[in-house]
């Protein structure tokens, strides 16, 4: 493939070609980490616009997909940091779920038994519905972190640096998210706690 300086119409052509060839992959990358269609679409658009503006930085030895994904990742982290700053810090103090423990720190009630396998449950549309409702109940920033963490197998140290948050905050929020989800599914799907 030749990389020749091109007039505007050809530039537009290459951007629309990127959209055709890489749009779904870029979207999947962003959606996986945000679980928000609107956010993922915006990120893909920003990425392609940024790529158009900086075509010279494309190293022909790397693949277009890798190059575009790199830009997208940058945009994604930018987006998360911004969202992080805009929302009130109080969310960190909020309890994600109703307290499951008594004053002595022991379970108030036995967690209910979770039957079937995850795969079998997911084939049940009613379960998926309850699961999505439980996920939607997470506070927005907690949810963002949760999805990013679950989609990324990366070390949380690196994640904290990119997001500019402290590891302790991250661990606390992830723990809250997991506890809240576990609690919500226990109550609304697997049966009332200990009753």
């Amino acid at each position, binding site marked *: 493939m030749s990389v020749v300086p091109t007039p*505007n*119409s050809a*530039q*537009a052509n290459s*951007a*629309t070609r990127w*959209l055709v060839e890489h*749009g*779904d992959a870029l*979207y*999947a990358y962003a*959606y*996986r980490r945000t679980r928000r*269609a609107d956010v*993922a*679409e915006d990120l*893909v*658009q920003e990425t*392609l*616009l940024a790529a*158009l503006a900086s075509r010279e930085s494309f190293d022909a030895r790397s693949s277009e997909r890798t190059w575009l994904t790199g830009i997208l990742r940058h945009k994604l982290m930018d987006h998360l940091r911004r969202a992080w700053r805009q929302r009130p810090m109080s969310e960190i103090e909020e309890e994600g779920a109703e307290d499951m*423990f008594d004053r*002595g*720190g*022991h*379970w108030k009630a*036995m*967690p209910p*038994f*979770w039957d079937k*396998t*995850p*795969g079998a*449950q*997911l084939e049940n549309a009613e379960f998926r519905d309850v*699961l999505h409702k439980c996920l939607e109940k997470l506070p927005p920033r907690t949810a963002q972190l949760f*999805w990013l963490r*679950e*989609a990324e197998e990366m070390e*949380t140290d690196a994640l904290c640096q990119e997001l500019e948050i402290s*590891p302790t905050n*991250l*661990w606390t929020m*992830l*723990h809250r998210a*997991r*506890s809240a*989800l*576990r609690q919500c*599914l*226990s109550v609304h799907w697997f049966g009332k706690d200990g009753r």
Partner: protein
Amino acid sequence: MARLRDIRNLNLTCREATRLMSEARERRLTRWERAGLTIHLGLCRYCRRYRRQLAYLRDVVKKIVDEPATMSESAKARIRQKLEESS
């Protein structure tokens, strides 16, 4: 050498144990934390069940995350138009 504080920390509440189980996915627990958790889990049926549910939840979420996602045609059309406008 074990300090008195470490030895006392071996005695975890369920609240502490559940937090450590979650954090174990994010960082390497200290030797004392691991020991405390092992002892606690050996004794506490409730927390063993919690541990199984954490693993269950992780599997469920992983499966959802891995489900394929594609962009809607209307979103593609919108982006295409934007790209054409700005070049």
